[in-house]
């Protein structure tokens, strides 16, 4: 590639990169460049292919337009170069873009099939186009299929399904009444009658061809009845969910087995659902159609399917080893309890498709229930006891469900968001436990703690110590510092100590990180430098001094002591030496003393205008940044300069240097002085 070519190619690349939207001028430019520089075709093609391959999906189409334009206008050799990778690029693009772009890509492809004016032939050679066409045919077929599966299913099977559902609901109610010994009540008889009607309706539907209108009416009526039953059922569920999990399971078992018996007449539909339980709702349609024609076959089917399902559940139970079984079973518990919630349909807008899916799920559940029953028969299930965490979880979980959410996964998420983690809960309990113990023990009243060889090595002492006294040094002080792990108790004194301790950590961390130092000199230039925590080891103090040393000087975290115990006696001396020579030093000292009484700060330091005539003193003015300030900086309203805070090691506070506060506003002390004199 010589220099000129390189320049052209670079420019092409540059222009192409601008093609982030559908722009005719850019495409025209690119086409012109391609036409004028046929010698660079190879590079252009490479760049453009690269572009199509690498750019974000939304921009791929525009690059394709550029390709199209070049090929149609410049023709050979571009067509030859491009056709080499065209299919690969086209396919790759097609697969990752959205449907709109796909349509556009297809129309683009259609335009390629048209013979061009110049040659009378399509733009690209036939084989390339054929491959793309084949690909598109396959892709759209797949697309079509997806669409079809979403379409509403034929009406008669749908009605069947609804009838089945209603039957199931009614059965449940019957069972309920039986449970409550209401067998002779009016409701019970009504329900039995309803079941009979439903049965007949089903037979009619199966045998006779009804007009579309009639079908619709049946559907409407069914829906009405359905809504009533649903309401009842929802109420029932709400009560049910407040019971223990295992009770729920037992209930479900009974319910399930009962529905199996009374459902016998209709079960061919249910079982066929089991056969096609793999969500592919369409597979059920042809199966049903066959049944419609001959009841005999359907009965046969029914028997077969029933057999199959029971068989599969028994093979399941033998498949699993006893160990893995217990875990599967407990996960099954969740599955079932969550599945039960699915039987609660959305009352008002019973969408046909979702109903259908629900039924599929229900039949799947039946299967699970079968498995569960057989497992529990074999004593292979672990049923959590009343006090277990699993039960608690389930309780909380079911309460959530009533609130209207319908998926167990989202429940777990919500639950883990709302509930503190197990370790936090344990922490609280253990702390509480320890506190109770600590409040009731006294080291003085522990004869076993008399220091003797026997006591120290006796198991009895160990037991007393490990059960009681050990809490004195751990959870008896429940407030653990999150930075260093030091523990603090609950008494006001300890709380105060902890406060000081946390403040100390805060100050130390700030110093360790280094502070942003902002110095204002006379020219008012501002520079920010980082003041690092550079330190060296101290000399050891002489023995005599050590004898008089108190460790409180090091470990005290009290704020007003802190300026004195800056952990450096040398530094302290230095401060003393330099500090008291200058007026500023004295001022600082004074303000330091004021620190212990915060209410004085405003009065003494800030409005100390009487001493302002000492100009050397002006720079020593500072204001401690109020805690309420958000951004640690203010703008001096006289010189309009922004003043940022710096950290003062000596007083351990963020301050604004050369600053004065007047009537709640902050100014440069120097600025204020100047303007005041005018």
């Amino acid at each position, binding site marked *: 590639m010589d220099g000129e070519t390189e320049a052209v190619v670079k420019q092409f690349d540059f222009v192409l990169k601008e093609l982030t939207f559908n722009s005719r001028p850019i495409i025209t430019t690119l086409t012109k460049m391609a036409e004028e520089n046929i010698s660079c075709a190879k590079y252009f093609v490479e760049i453009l292919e690269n572009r199509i391959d690498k750019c974000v999906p939304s921009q791929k189409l525009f690059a394709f337009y550029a390709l199209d334009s070049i090929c149609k206008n410049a023709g050979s050799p571009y067509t030859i170069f491009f056709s080499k990778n065209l299919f690969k690029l086209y396919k790759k693009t097609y697969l990752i873009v959205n449907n709109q772009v796909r349509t556009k890509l297809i129309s683009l492809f259609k335009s390629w099939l048209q013979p061009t004016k110049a040659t009378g032939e399509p733009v690209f050679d036939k084989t390339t186009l054929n491959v793309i066409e084949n690909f598109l045919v396959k892709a759209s077929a797949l697309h079509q299929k997806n669409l079809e599966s979403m379409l509403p299913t034929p009406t008669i099977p749908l009605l069947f399904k609804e009838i089945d559902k209603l039957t199931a609901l009614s059965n449940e109610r019957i069972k309920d009444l039986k449970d409550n010994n209401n067998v002779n009540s009016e409701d019970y008889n009504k329900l039995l009658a309803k079941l009979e009607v439903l049965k007949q309706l089903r037979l009619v539907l199966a045998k006779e061809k009804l007009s579309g209108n009639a079908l619709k009416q049946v559907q409407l009526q069914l829906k009405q009845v359905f809504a009533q039953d649903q309401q009842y059922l929802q109420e029932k569920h709400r009560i049910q969910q407040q019971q223990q999990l295992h009770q729920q399971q037992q209930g479900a078992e009974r319910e399930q087995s009962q529905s199996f018996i009374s459902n016998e007449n209709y079960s061919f539909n249910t079982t066929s659902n089991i056969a096609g339980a793999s969500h592919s709702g369409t597979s059920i349609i042809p199966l049903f159609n066959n049944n419609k024609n001959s009841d005999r076959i359907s009965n046969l089917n029914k028997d077969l399917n029933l057999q199959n399902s029971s068989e599969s559940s028994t093979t399941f139970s033998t498949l699993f080893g006893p160990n893995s079984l217990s875990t599967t079973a407990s996960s099954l518990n969740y599955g079932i309890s969550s599945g039960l919630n699915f039987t609660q349909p959305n009352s008002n807008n019973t969408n046909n498709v979702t109903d259908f899916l629900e039924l599929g799920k229900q039949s799947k559940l039946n299967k699970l229930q079968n498995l569960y029953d057989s497992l529990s028969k074999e004593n292979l299930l672990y049923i959590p006891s009343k006090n277990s965490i699993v039960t608690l979880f389930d309780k909380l979980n079911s309460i959530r469900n009533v609130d209207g959410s319908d998926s167990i996964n989202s429940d777990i998420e919500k639950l883990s968001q709302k509930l503190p983690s197990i370790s936090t809960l344990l922490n609280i309990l253990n702390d509480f436990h320890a506190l109770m113990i600590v409040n009731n023990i006294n080291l003085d009243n522990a004869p076993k703690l008399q220091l003797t060889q026997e006591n120290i090595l006796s198991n009895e002492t160990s037991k007393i110590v490990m059960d009681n006294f050990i809490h004195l040094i751990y959870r*008896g002080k429940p407030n653990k510092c999150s930075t260093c792990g030091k523990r603090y108790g609950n008494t006001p004194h300890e709380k105060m100590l902890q406060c000081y301790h946390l403040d100390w950590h805060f100050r130390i961390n700030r*110093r360790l990180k280094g502070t942003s130092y902002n110095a204002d000199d006379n020219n008012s230039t501002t520079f920010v430098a980082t003041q690092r925590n550079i*330190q060296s*080891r101290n000399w050891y103090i002489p023995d005599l001094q050590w004898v008089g040393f108190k460790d409180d000087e*090091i470990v005290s975290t009290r704020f007003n002591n802190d300026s004195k115990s800056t952990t450096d006696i040398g530094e302290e001396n230095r401060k003393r030496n330099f500090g008291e020579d200058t007026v500023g030093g004295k001022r600082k000292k004074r303000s330091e003393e004021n620190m212990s009484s915060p209410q004085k700060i405003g009065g003494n330091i800030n409005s100390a205008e009487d001493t302002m005539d000492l100009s050397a003193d002006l720079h020593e003015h500072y204001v401690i940044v109020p805690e309420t300030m958000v951004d640690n900086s203010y703008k001096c309203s006289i010189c309009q300069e922004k003043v940022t805070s710096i950290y003062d090691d000596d007083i351990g506070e963020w301050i604004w240097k050369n600053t004065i506060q007047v009537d709640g506003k902050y100014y440069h002390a120097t600025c204020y002085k100047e303007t005041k004199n005018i």
Partner: protein
Amino acid sequence: MSLPGLEPGHTGNTLSLDSDSINDPINGPINIYNGDVKLANKDEPQYLTLSIGMQWSLELGKQDLVGQHVKIYITVLSGICEVLGTELANDVEYCFQDWNFSVLAIEDSRIKWRLVNLMIPLDDPFINNVTPNDNAKYVYNLHFAIEKLRCSSFTGPKVLILGNKNTGKTSLSRILSSYSIKNKAYQPMFINLDPEQPIVSPPGCIMATPISDLIDLQSPFWNESLTSGATKLHSRQPLIKNFGFEKIEDNFDWYVDTVRQMLDTVDRRLYNDPLVQRSGCIIDTPSCFYESYESFESVLNMIISKMKIDIIVILSANTNNDISTTINAEPINKIIDKNKCSVIKLPKLTGVIPNDDAYKRLLQRLAIRDYFYGDLNTVITPYVTSCDFTDLIIWELPVNNRSDTFNGSANVGDASIPSNNQNNGNNNNTENDMSADTVKSLTLQPVEVNQPNLQHAIITIYHCPKRTEPKQILQSSVMGFALITEVNEKRQRCKLLLPVPGSLPKNALVLTSYRYLE
């Protein structure tokens, strides 16, 4: 406790510890201890559950296959864990390097850990060493018995810890010290009498400091001594006495004298500081105190009487249970007054990782580096200075290995002369009664300034002027240490590394036998 299912026992069952691994809904799969820790991927964070009373011993003093030192990051996610008595903060990542220690679970705990630059076999025992800590309960018993004494008197319990090599004497001291500041704000005086092990100081020193705040659980040297700036934890203001030799027997007389000086000073501090006085003392000793008991009888006597020791803890070399029966046979019984002093014998601590010489050297080297450059958390800057040979007056004590004191009990009387006098309280007469040998041991000799003598040497700077009488130098206090990094005989100049900015103080200097190559 009305929350069902949350009693500790129950959750303990739910997180059944005998299954291989369970899936934690929040934190993903975790490894449960069941004999070994499986390593999925050495760079990924690993999870470990330590059930109550288990101890995870980590031997980081070793090098891996490519000679790198292993660094481990440990985060306690839940529960309570401690390192030698100091509790780890939860959800804080701690870094450990270059020392052997163990993490003890006080409650069932979950730990996240990761290794950096690991080049060791994945099944190496050093990361898999989880054992039940059977003897922790005795330490608790001992601690609370001591704590009870603290409550009942104004002169706190003075504990002397003796025992064989690798029985956990220093660990026990550290644990007792840590525990004692937990319940109430006591400040027990900790005294390290083993010059070979550096604690808060460079090696070759004995040291005393009140334990007034948390011991740095990441540091094998317990704490930093004071620096001029901010440190993550409170640092210590220790009393340092320079011994300067590698082995006690290199100059036994000087060792005895150093201990005597130290205890005198500590005694005065205790007198001045009621809080420390009340908190008592914990004294860690070198193993030779116990092992060559006859030679050290005089020293022991001096310590016991000077410090008014009332508890002697002996760590037995074995872990079996017949300790109570052997206690009467302890030779130590011969020299103590049973009425004033109770002797407790404990089995060797669980999980003691035996120290070898290489590890000891490693710690000594690290302690010197630490003194000048700081540790993982605190970076401190030393100061390089240089001076003429003529400015240097360096003294040293002679190596005076009196083999007799270590090979038999014949001359015990000789060795005990200085201390016996101390016992009588006649400080002034000490020098008069010294044997010729002792005098020789305690006489400073000038060192010729040349490369072989001084290159890479650590020298002690005393708090007394350069021209002080040699005898006086040894009585004065230690100001700090300097490292001679370069001796240029041509230009007659030395380069020195000082801990504190400035030129070399015009103070008395004494050569130690420690060398450090940066």
